[in-house]
């Protein structure tokens, strides 16, 4: 290795890290600030978190978010695992297109086109419509995660089991599934955070009384910048952090260059 530590490179990279983290640090710090204005440090307080606990709308929205994320991640994990397995085993042309296109398109397009669909079939917009929408955009991420895991799997294992007389189902249950598990779990956790964080698609597919945390944050932020938003943002960040670090432990590969 002859590459010298290039000082210029390191400084510019450090500045970019600063750019990435400073804004988030400001949000967290001001969530403990004893002032209505997010302007200067006055003193430490827990009161904005206390206020959150008594904010019924916020608690309802948090509840909705959790229900939606759990159901959508569950369903997307099953569908995405099937898609990922199918994609890595066959030279399908149509399925990868269908799985990847929702990831590649601007989110707003999925939002408005699903709105058209739901209204056409006379569906009341609410938790169900949000879940159906979230499953749609989560499938691709799970599929990619499972496919990555699948491609690192030795096909000889399954063939050996088949030669020894195991049924396809038993083969799947005792070999393929356990080996795929980290990929499946990581994909599921990713789907969970994508769902809990989604704003754009939820915005178009939510109805009266089905507000989620991001929608709640949006409507608060539209009116004014308040420390209560900082507090809920901090909690949301903490939740995502825990889930994502968990997912990256399970399957480090999927977080590199998707």
């Amino acid at each position, binding site marked *: 290795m002859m590459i010298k530590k290039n000082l210029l490179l390191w400084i510019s990279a450090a500045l970019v890290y600063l750019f990435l983290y400073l804004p988030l640090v400001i949000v967290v710090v001001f969530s403990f600030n004893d002032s209505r204005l997010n302007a200067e440090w006055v003193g430490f307080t827990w009161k904005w978190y206390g206020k959150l606990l008594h904010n019924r709308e916020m608690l309802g929205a948090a509840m909705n978010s959790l229900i939606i994320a759990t159901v959508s991640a569950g369903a997307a994990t099953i569908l995405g695992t099937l898609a990922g397995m199918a994609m890595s085993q066959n030279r399908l042309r149509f399925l990868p297109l269908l799985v990847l296109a929702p990831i590649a398109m*601007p989110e707003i397009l999925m939002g408005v086109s699903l*709105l058209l669909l739901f209204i056409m079939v006379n569906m009341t917009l609410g938790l169900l419509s949000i879940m159906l929408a979230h499953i749609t955009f989560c499938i691709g991420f799970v599929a990619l995660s499972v496919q990555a895991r699948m491609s690192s799997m030795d096909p000889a294992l399954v063939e050996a089991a088949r030669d020894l007389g195991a049924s396809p189902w038993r083969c799947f249950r005792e070999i393929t599934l356990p080996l795929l598990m980290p990929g499946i779990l990581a994909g599921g956790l990713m789907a969970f955070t994508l769902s809990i964080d989604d704003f754009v698609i939820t915005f178009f597919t939510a109805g009266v009384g089905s507000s989620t945390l991001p929608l709640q944050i949006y409507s608060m*932020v539209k009116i004014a910048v308040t420390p209560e938003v900082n507090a809920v943002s901090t909690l949301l960040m903490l939740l995502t952090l825990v889930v994502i670090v968990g997912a990256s432990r399970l399957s480090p590969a999927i977080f590199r260059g998707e």
Partner: protein
Amino acid sequence: MQRKAWYKYLLSLPPMAYLLIFFAAPTFLMLFATFRYAGEYGGLAPWYLQEGGRLTMDLTLENWQRLVESDIYLRLFLKSIGYAVATTLICMIMGYPLALMIARSGRKHRDLLLLLVILPFWSNFLVRIYAWMIIFSPVGALTRMLNGLLDLIGAAPVTLMYSPTAMLVCLVYVHLPFMVLPLYANLEKHDFDLLDAAQDLGAGKWRRFWLITWPLSLPGITAGSILVFIPVLGMFAIPDLLGGTNGIMIGNVIKQQFMESRDWPFGSVLSMVLTVTAVAVVLLGSRLGARREGR
């Protein structure tokens, strides 16, 4: 081996069916909606029973005519493309050194450095916008400091909030990881022997970069650019919260057509144009990528 095939296809059926219903069908529905009339109270005009008892509806080209009648929408598209191009370029300039630094740091630190890029990207999208609303707020430290400086040299005070600058900074902030990740994936694979050889032959630092690293990283740049360009093109939340009245992008007008003025057919027209643009960009990008691979 043959018998394997059919139940592998069976595996793909449930996700395929789901995505056909909830992704492909809505897209065609949207295309169809561009030829329909708006309903009296918004939405789409309902189907009605013809005299013969047949369900029918009226179709029109009016919505598409409206798109081309004035240059408002063309300009709006060009402006959105302008923001997308600017964001992509800035992300590239900021992301390249970072990706390069991570790719060239020791194996031990790489995963951590990479995780540090990804983490902010997984924090909530709105929270990341909100952070910049605090930073750019008129009572915030940055604005007051800047205006203090401007005051010293006798210039008029400025507001940072609701400006194209604020929007651009936030657009870059939100999309930067999309550029860094594919770039890193590419840079990591480079063969250091090439750089060694170039150095032995007397090439300087910059020459080595421009003749070796840069051309080899072009596929990574293409991938990153697509990942940044497309979401920015359809963005509505950032202009909505940080852009003010001048910062409207095509996404804002689509949102307005669907949620406020409730002219769904025209909203669908704008969405279709956005879809076609996005698909064109993806195809162009993958074509470029494929050609480089071939060389």
